[in-house]
């Protein structure tokens, strides 16, 4: 009895275990990992992709998948930086977020109405959004020099920038929406079993579209924050970010098959990937090899998840 309880505990909190092992490992290998400056840096780095990660949690729970978030981030950053001089901070942010909503609608309608596979559809829109960003900026980075924008990126709470707090807030909002509202419950239902959800009277296409709108709006927000942090918008800002985000969310325990997951799981997953990246930096591994590690890590995570779902369906 006790052993069974231990096993189920391990199964539920395996992401936490991985994180604990990683943290212990770093404590032994590189104690200066626990330097407050490094921890602060880690949270700063995770905050932008983390916001997308929380958005992606909705999408994955609904059983869909968005490859285009990186391009949405890039395009939003470019739109924001282009509009900033003429519109001012608040209006420019608003327009950028609306653009994010529209991009989400585009993806969502492709998947829910035209019934494209979400991977292929968002792979196509990845190219479309990136191309639009390139056309607007002609490939050059756009610098920003708005006073409000500079003030926000220099604002400190304690010794922290404002970004990690936005990240945590996004996490809390995600948790609330998923666990405490009808929308959240319906998203779980849609991801768990689409046909049953449709028979129960849930408007499946609406929720499928909604999850894309959520993730793209989150990416647009991330694009604005990225631009604020770097004080410029580049056309390569979001390259390859989608894979990082998806693997983070999945390692946390949100299943790509849909119906399982939550904000807390995604948070743990995001921290795990951030710790890994930060450790690789500290151990002095070059950018190309980091790409290799990230690629193989994705393969490992997706592979293990897919194998375990295979085992589960076989045993039923």
């Amino acid at each position, binding site marked *: 009895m006790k052993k069974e309880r231990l096993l189920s505990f391990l199964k539920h909190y395996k992401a936490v275990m991985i994180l604990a092992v990683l943290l212990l490992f770093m404590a032994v290998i590189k104690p200066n990992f626990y330097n407050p400056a490094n921890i602060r840096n880690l949270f700063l780095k995770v905050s932008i992709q983390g916001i997308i990660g929380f958005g992606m949690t909705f999408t994955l729970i609904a059983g869909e998948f968005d490859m285009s978030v990186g391009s949405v981030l890039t395009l939003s950053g470019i739109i924001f930086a282009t509009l900033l001089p003429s519109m001012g901070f608040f209006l420019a942010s608003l327009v950028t977020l609306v653009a994010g909503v529209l991009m989400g609608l585009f993806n969502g309608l*492709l998947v829910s109405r035209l019934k494209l*596979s*979400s991977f292929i559809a968002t792979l196509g829109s990845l190219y479309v959004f990136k191309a639009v960003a390139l056309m607007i900026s002609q490939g050059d980075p756009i610098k920003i020099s708005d006073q409000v924008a500079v003030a926000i990126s220099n604002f400190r709470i304690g010794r922290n920038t404002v970004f990690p707090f936005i990240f945590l807030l996004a996490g809390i909002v995600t948790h609330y929406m998923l666990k405490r509202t009808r929308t959240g419950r319906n998203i779980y239902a849609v991801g768990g079993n689409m046909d049953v959800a449709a028979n129960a009277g849930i408007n499946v296409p609406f929720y499928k579209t909604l999850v894309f709108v959520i993730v793209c709006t989150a990416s647009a927000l991330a694009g604005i924050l990225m631009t604020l942090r770097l004080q410029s918008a580049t056309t390569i800002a979001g390259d390859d970010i989608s894979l990082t985000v998806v693997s983070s969310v999945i390692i946390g325990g949100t299943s790509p098959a849909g119906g399982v997951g939550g904000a807390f799981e995604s948070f743990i997953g995001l921290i795990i990937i951030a710790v890994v990246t930060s450790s690789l930096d500290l151990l002095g591994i070059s950018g*190309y090899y980091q790409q290799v590690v990230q690629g*193989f890590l994705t393969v490992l995570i997706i592979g293990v998840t897919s194998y375990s779902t295979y085992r589960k369906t076989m045993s039923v």
Partner: protein
Amino acid sequence: MNKNSWKKFLSAVPEYACIAVMLVLILFSSILAPKFFTADNLMNILKQASVVSIVAIGMGCVLISGCMDLSVGVEMAICSIISMVMQKYIGTIGAVLLTLAVGAALSLLNFLVVYITRARAVEIMMLTFGLKMAYRGLAQALTGNVTYREETSVFFSMLGKGTVGIIPNIVLIMLGIAVVVGVLLSCSKFGREVVSIGNNPEASRLSGISIPWTRFKCFLISGLCCAAAGILLASRTRAVNALSGDGYEMDAMCGLVIGGYAVFGGYGSVWRAVVGVFVYSAIKNVLNLLGVDAYGQQLAQGVILLIAVAVDVYLRVRRGGGKQS
């Protein structure tokens, strides 16, 4: 014509949609860009499309069997680097053979990953996407991102640059590969098995077809095609680096989908792959002639892919026979 045969004709339309698209495209481009029909330009399209066609023919086999491999572009780049660099050490023939072996090995490694993890549809795409990143990072790190411009033997450069009469060798090689793979797919037991496991894996398994073994052969063909494409690319451009193959998987994918391949398997044939890639290359060429810049072309690429997939899904859902996801 009675009603029944008219229905038959209608249901055959999607089968040959890519030919119709090609005709419409040729018509439009000859009106929009008169230069399209010059011999030089047509020859250029032929040569450019040949390398992508070879990749697409291989990838097509994998696609029909219900898998997908997004790492073919990087595999091709690695093969092209090896074929160029190794000539100094082991001779031209040795380098070509080694390249074919490496291509096959990389592709089979992908197969192994897909097989061991028992991945399905989207998971396969994500896995091979991750593998693509890993291979690319590894290739960049090992080569230091250097562009190789080695002296190559006459035979090697003839592969990509020579001509027989007015037809470039590269086109002949492509046609040769297309015929071999085409015969394999349409006239052999293996071909029928591939289509069968793509259409319905469970039924195929129950009727005694080994899914892993058939997919193994598909990935093998894909790897060999990547290697051949890599060799031709190296021979034609004489300058290759780890990023030479970037985007080829998207080009091949677009070509295949335009050619009417089902994204999730069970449908397609080699001539469709070739026609699809040629249509796609012709579209790119016309955009070039019309003076659309690189960014506009990237936009067009995305839009073409989306439209082609949407039409594919629409026709399949309407016809009812195919799979939706």
